[in-house]
């Protein structure tokens, strides 16, 4: 009787152990695949959001010569990483989005790239709702529309801006940018942008530069270079310089297109005196934004040549 009990116990024990080991293995596999699947889903959702960001900015570029604003609302708290690569024909705008799920940010490192976008913002911005506003960059012809991304919970306080800037900001109705006449009127949490006086971001509008600590960002262009000025206010040094470098590449490419157009219209007896050589050579020698101001004399010259020609190229 004793012997039978022992053998029965051993029999039960082995089958249970076998079932437990294989069951645990199956459970482990199931949990492993669920975790993998959730991560893949999050990555897919992040990539979809970053691609969508590129796509929804298309309407911002519709009417050249105008500033336009849209409000972007995402389903959850989101981190947008703004990157830039200046290698290649036009360089690339890189966007990576990490969305929050169950109180934790996804850690996908996959970026979406766009050759035809120019986004200015801090390197990483975090919010659920964002303002996206755009302005055309003309040098001297329309080169591209620049898009500025601002989190809606962040406030930029413009102290004593020139009338043309305060009017523009008021017309855009962006709640994240406020105009005040004294620095003390800014909220304590806001980023102060001084056009006169001294604060964390100082804009020397007439000399064409923005000073942030030790970094100086130069801006230039038609309309007093306002498009690049906003870019300098909202972005960090490396990103700003990279985006301006990409804009210069596109300016050179467009100059070649206009030069080729000049040849086509001249065949029809429609002459143009525009000479792009000086602009193209100064862009070839371009290093950083401090080269913009010396370059601007040839930009103005080309603008005049185009306006007095029989046939305007743009």
């Amino acid at each position, binding site marked *: 009787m004793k012997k039978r009990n022992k053998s029965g116990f051993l029999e039960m024990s082995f089958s249970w152990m076998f079932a437990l080991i294989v069951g645990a293995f199956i459970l482990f596999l199931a949990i492993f695949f669920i975790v993998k699947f959730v991560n893949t889903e999050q990555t897919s959702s992040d990539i979809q959001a970053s*691609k969508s960001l590129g*796509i929804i900015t298309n309407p911002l570029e*519709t009417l*050249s010569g105008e500033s336009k604003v849209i409000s972007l609302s995402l389903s959850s708290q989101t981190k947008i990483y703004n990157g830039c690569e200046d290698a290649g024909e036009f360089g690339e705008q890189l966007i990576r989005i990490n969305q929050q799920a169950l109180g934790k940010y996804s850690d996908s490192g996959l970026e979406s790239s766009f*050759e035809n976008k120019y986004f200015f913002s801090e390197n990483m911005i975090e919010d659920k709702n964002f303002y996206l506003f755009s302005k055309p960059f003309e040098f001297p012809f329309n080169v591209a529309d620049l898009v500025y991304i601002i989190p809606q919970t962040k406030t930029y306080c413009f102290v004593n801006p020139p009338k043309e800037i305060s009017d523009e900001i008021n017309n855009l109705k962006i709640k994240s940018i406020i105009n005040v006449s004294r620095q003390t009127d800014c909220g304590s949490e806001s980023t102060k942008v001084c056009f006169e006086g001294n604060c964390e971001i100082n804009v020397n509008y007439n000399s064409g530069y923005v000073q942030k600590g030790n970094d100086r960002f130069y801006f230039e262009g038609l309309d007093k270079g306002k498009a690049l000025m906003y870019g300098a206010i909202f972005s960090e040094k490396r990103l700003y310089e990279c985006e301006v470098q990409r804009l210069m590449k596109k300016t050179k490419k*467009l100059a070649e297109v*206009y030069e080729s*157009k000049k040849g*086509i219209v001249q065949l*029809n007896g429609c002459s143009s005196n525009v000479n792009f050589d000086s602009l193209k050579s100064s862009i070839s020698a371009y290093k950083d934004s401090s080269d913009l101001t010396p370059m601007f004399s040839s930009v103005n010259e080309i603008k005049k040549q185009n306006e007095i020609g029989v046939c305007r190229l743009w």
Partner: protein
Amino acid sequence: MVKKTKRSQMKIQQTAFMLIAMTLLFVLAGVFFLGFKLSGLKKQALSLEENNALLLVSKLANSPEFSCENSFGTKRTNCVDEDKVMALKNNGGYSKFWGSSNIEIRKVGGSERECTAGSYPDCDVIKVSNTQQRGTYVGNFVALCRKANVKGYIEDKCEVAKLLVSYEVKNG
């Protein structure tokens, strides 16, 4: 004793078969679920491509590479500068710029004659970017303007055309 061992072996086999069957069931369910999710993912990718093409075609006519700007008097919306587009076609380097497969302009009621440096302006189809890939086209009507020499006088000549952008439909 021998009978007992045989019975326990049978039990172990039963458990093993049961576990194998369960594993297979889970695997099959997993494969089915993944296939379902993957087809959803493909649909999402296609929808993104379609949206991109639709929004691109509506903004392309006003982009610096296509728009008339002030060449024909005042600034006009949805006006494409034909001379500039021909210059752009000859210039190259824009193959990946808009992230779309093909971009072409077709004059409404025109022939299939493609515009090249030799045939321009007596032609009706300008293939700006042509990757030879098949895709679905979305289009937008535009005014296609150029400078024309009529009996020694320079005139602005505008025609109605359709700006077409294709997006790739990936199969498999």
